[in-house]
């Protein structure tokens, strides 16, 4: 008998009225009682910081945890492009409906209508809120907010702060959080990593953390727990995520009963700087706008090692232009990424590792002149030449796709609460809004929507409906969870292995990008499902004991996170194997049109697959939440 009940709890009524009705009907906690409520927020990125600040402003006592030295270091800071909102400031026909529709369609019809509609509704408030905080958005000469069109959208709805939008939005949320820390309404716990979730009487009531400086294992109790712990792209080892990004907090919640939804939906960004060798520790994203003027090609011949300028036009394969004549180099992210992988698999990749394709500006420079190209892409070219020591004005850039964002995550209902009562999940850590693919400039929107405008309401409703007590973290459940956490760490200390976590992580990553990356197949996934448990076993056998626990120890941190990635990778492959269709970023080689396009199967897979943990050595159990698309018509993407 399973514990997982998937009830999305979507309010009744027409789509446009659902959120209003919800707000009208929700229960409130009285100001006097709010002070007695304690909420744990794990993670201080866009979602976590905005949630912690907003909850504290409302009067709740918040305990905010981050494994960084400061909330401002969270990886939201690295988002470059911008944030969408349905303001229609440009009078180009944008609306809440259009943003909603674009998001559902972009996600290839694998997300919940009600959630996405609400996201589009609150998107406008986010901009207002950020402006009020002093976020220096780009402005027109007349002083109005500037917008740009982003990621192939037909309207200009993206707000931006140069190429540092994520940074400025995070610093805005961080400043609001700092204000609450100063008042004592938020207590901040830096350099603390959540290692487990504590469940008391079926409700999430606390967490167990490890202090990354002293090694202390400690429990914290609260009336509700909010996870804002980001995505899991680092399961691939090389990704655009920061080094510390990991799945541990979400995965430990999964092991305590929370369902993991659509974990195989991962986005691979087509324009990243390729790895330069085995030492590569992470990948760097470059703006997709480069594809507006750059032409993507590889040599026609396999193993052609001539420098780019020695390869005559007739021996070049401009494969995107060839396969997708109308979209050409601007083909969507997933198509573009997959095609790059295919040509490299054929042995036609360029650069020292053979995992790269050219992005060539020679024609654009001929046509517009170097000065125009410099004006358009100067800082991106500088960044590229800084990293690679090559001059993109004279030598074509090399690019390769890199894992970038994960649409999947812990399953949540309309309240952003997981199937474990009292456990809320926001931002990239949940699965809710992006379906099988995320639109550009929508990640920042979702993180802030969840944190500023949705969770503070839905959490209040939960607390108002729940019996509250002043639980202290010394009950049996807390002690038991602490003991298990310590045992988990101890498990690595006894061996006498010789391999480091990094070498295992790299191997897992290579396996995952091959089997569960840009292109997946039943055969490849089955192979991975056989190999991952073996590799995990080797990991436990051969890992070097990480040593000291009572001090800063990066080796120990990495081993713990990697152990979770190993188990998580299996769930991911199960999900990818079970979803026997292609949709969005999930491309199953068996399901493609004659032109090599993703072929959806709406009959059987217009749903959310949510996985329940049943034990480390037994396969997870699948639960299905059907997606009822009542407003949007299913359509087939066509980029020919």
């Amino acid at each position, binding site marked *: 008998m399973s514990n997982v009940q998937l009830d999305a709890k979507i309010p009744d009524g027409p789509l446009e009225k659902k959120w209003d009705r919800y707000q009208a009907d929700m229960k409130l906690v009285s100001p006097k009682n709010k002070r007695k409520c304690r909420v744990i927020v794990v993670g201080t990125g866009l979602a976590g910081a905005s949630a912690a*600040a907003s909850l504290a402003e409302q009067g709740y006592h918040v305990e905010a945890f981050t494994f960084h030295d*400061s*909330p*401002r270091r*969270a*990886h939201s*800071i*690295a988002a470059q492009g911008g944030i969408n909102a349905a*303001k229609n*400031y440009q009078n180009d026909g944008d609306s809440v409906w259009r943003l909603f529709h674009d998001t559902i369609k972009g996600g290839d019809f694998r997300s919940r209508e009600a959630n996405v509609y609400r996201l589009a509704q609150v998107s406008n408030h986010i*901009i*207002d*809120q950020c*402006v*009020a*905080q*002093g976020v*220096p*958005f*780009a*402005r027109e*000469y007349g*002083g*109005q*907010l500037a917008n740009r069109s982003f990621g192939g959208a037909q309207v200009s709805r993206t707000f931006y*702060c140069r190429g*540092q939008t994520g*940074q*400025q939005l995070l*610093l805005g949320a*961080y*400043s*609001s959080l*700092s*204000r609450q*820390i*100063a008042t004592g309404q938020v207590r901040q716990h830096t350099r603390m990593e959540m290692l487990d979730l504590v469940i008391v009487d079926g409700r999430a009531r606390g967490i167990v953390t490890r202090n990354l*400086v002293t090694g202390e294992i400690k429990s914290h109790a609260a009336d509700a727990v909010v996870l804002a712990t980001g995505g899991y792209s680092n399961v691939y080892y090389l990704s655009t995520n*920061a*080094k510390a990004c990991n799945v541990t907090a979400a995965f430990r919640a999964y092991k305590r009963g929370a369902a993991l939804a659509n974990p195989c939906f991962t986005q691979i960004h087509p324009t990243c700087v390729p790895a*330069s*060798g085995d*030492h590569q*520790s992470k990948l760097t994203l470059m703006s997709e706008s480069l594809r507006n003027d750059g032409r993507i090609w590889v040599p026609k011949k396999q193993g052609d090692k001539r420098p780019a300028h020695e390869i005559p036009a007739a021996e070049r394969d401009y494969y995107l232009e060839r396969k997708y004549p109308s979209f050409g180099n601007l083909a969507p992210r997933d198509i573009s990424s997959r095609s790059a992988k295919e040509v490299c698999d054929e042995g036609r990749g360029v650069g020292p590792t053979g995992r790269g394709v050219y992005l060539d500006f020679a024609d654009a420079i001929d046509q517009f002149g170097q000065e125009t190209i410099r004006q358009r892409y100067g800082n991106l070219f500088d960044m590229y030449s800084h*990293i*690679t*020591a090559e001059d993109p004005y004279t030598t074509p850039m090399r690019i390769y796709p890199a894992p970038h964002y994960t649409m999947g995550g812990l399953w949540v209902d309309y309240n952003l609460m997981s199937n474990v009562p009292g456990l809320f999940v926001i931002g990239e850590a949940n699965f809710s809004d992006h379906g099988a693919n995320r639109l550009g400039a929508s990640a920042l929107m979702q993180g802030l929507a969840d944190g500023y*405008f949705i969770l*503070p309401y839905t959490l209040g409703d939960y607390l108002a409906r729940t019996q509250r007590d002043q639980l202290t973290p010394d009950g049996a459940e807390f002690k038991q969870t602490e003991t298990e956490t310590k045992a988990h760490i101890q498990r690595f200390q006894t061996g006498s292995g010789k*391999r*480091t*976590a990094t*070498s295992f992580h790299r191997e897992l990553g290579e396996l995952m990008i091959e089997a569960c990356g840009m292109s997946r197949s039943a055969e490849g996934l089955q192979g991975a499902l056989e190999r991952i448990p073996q590799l995990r076993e080797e990991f436990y056998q051969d890992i070097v004991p*990480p*040593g000291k626990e009572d*001090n*800063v*120890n*990066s*080796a120990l941190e990495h081993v713990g996170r990697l152990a979770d990635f190993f188990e998580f990778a299996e769930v991911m492959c199960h999900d990818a194997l079970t979803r026997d269709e292609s949709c969005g970023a999930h491309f199953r080689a068996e399901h493609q049109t004659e032109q090599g396009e993703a072929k959806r199967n709406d009959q059987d897979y217009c749903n959310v697959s949510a996985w329940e943990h049943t034990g480390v050595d037994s396969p997870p159990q699948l639960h299905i939440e059907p997606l009822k698309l009542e407003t949007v018509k299913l359509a087939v993407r066509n980029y020919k």
Partner: protein
Amino acid sequence: MHLTLHVWRQNGPDQSGQMVTYPARNLSPDMSVLEMLDHVNEQLIADGDEPIAFDHDCREGICGSCSMVVNGLPHGPQKASTTCQIFLRNFRDGDDIYIEPFRATAFPIMKDLMVDRSALDRIIQAGGYVSANTGGAPDGNALPIPQHTAEAAMDAAACIGCGACVAACKNASAMLFTAAKVSQLATLPQGEAERGERARRMIAQMDQEMFGGCTNQGACSAVCPKEIGLEWIAKLNREHIRSKLPQAT
């Protein structure tokens, strides 16, 4: 390529430390300085030794985590760069490289190259915000902000809070950091209501955290990965004087 590293090792905050020499062999010129440290750490971990502790995260120059002094320069020998964006091609094969933690009383060393920069957070907590609760904000376009004003605010707001300015300053002054935040909000109309109080409180916190006084030497701006200019320090001084005047908000 091969390099010889001299790295500050210190086990904990109250312990003494020293420079320890490590050979770093078979490196690629395309490695970043942090990847070089990864490489050395891999060997240390495999040998059962403690890896060199250092803060790092995004490795694309924006999170502000990396914090080390390479050959006497915070972040290392390249202008407008964080350590993660400095590649070994900046060095010659066989070079000696000296890596030390950021040094300042306000940044106590936690371990090896890892320092505690929470003093910077406390400066922000003292007033580096606009008191705008979530909800009820007017429309974003209700208050037009001239483009040059928004751009100027963005110049100051680009600070990544890494603390290199403090590390480079002979006096360990946090003026450039504080100036960037105070100026961002003093430049924008949204920051007007709390302008004087903010400057007063942030400066008082800065002094309380044991940062030194500014003697206008300019090392801070010279090493700043985001090239925050010295004119913001002048602006901070202006804001400070302004905050002392009667009726300043």
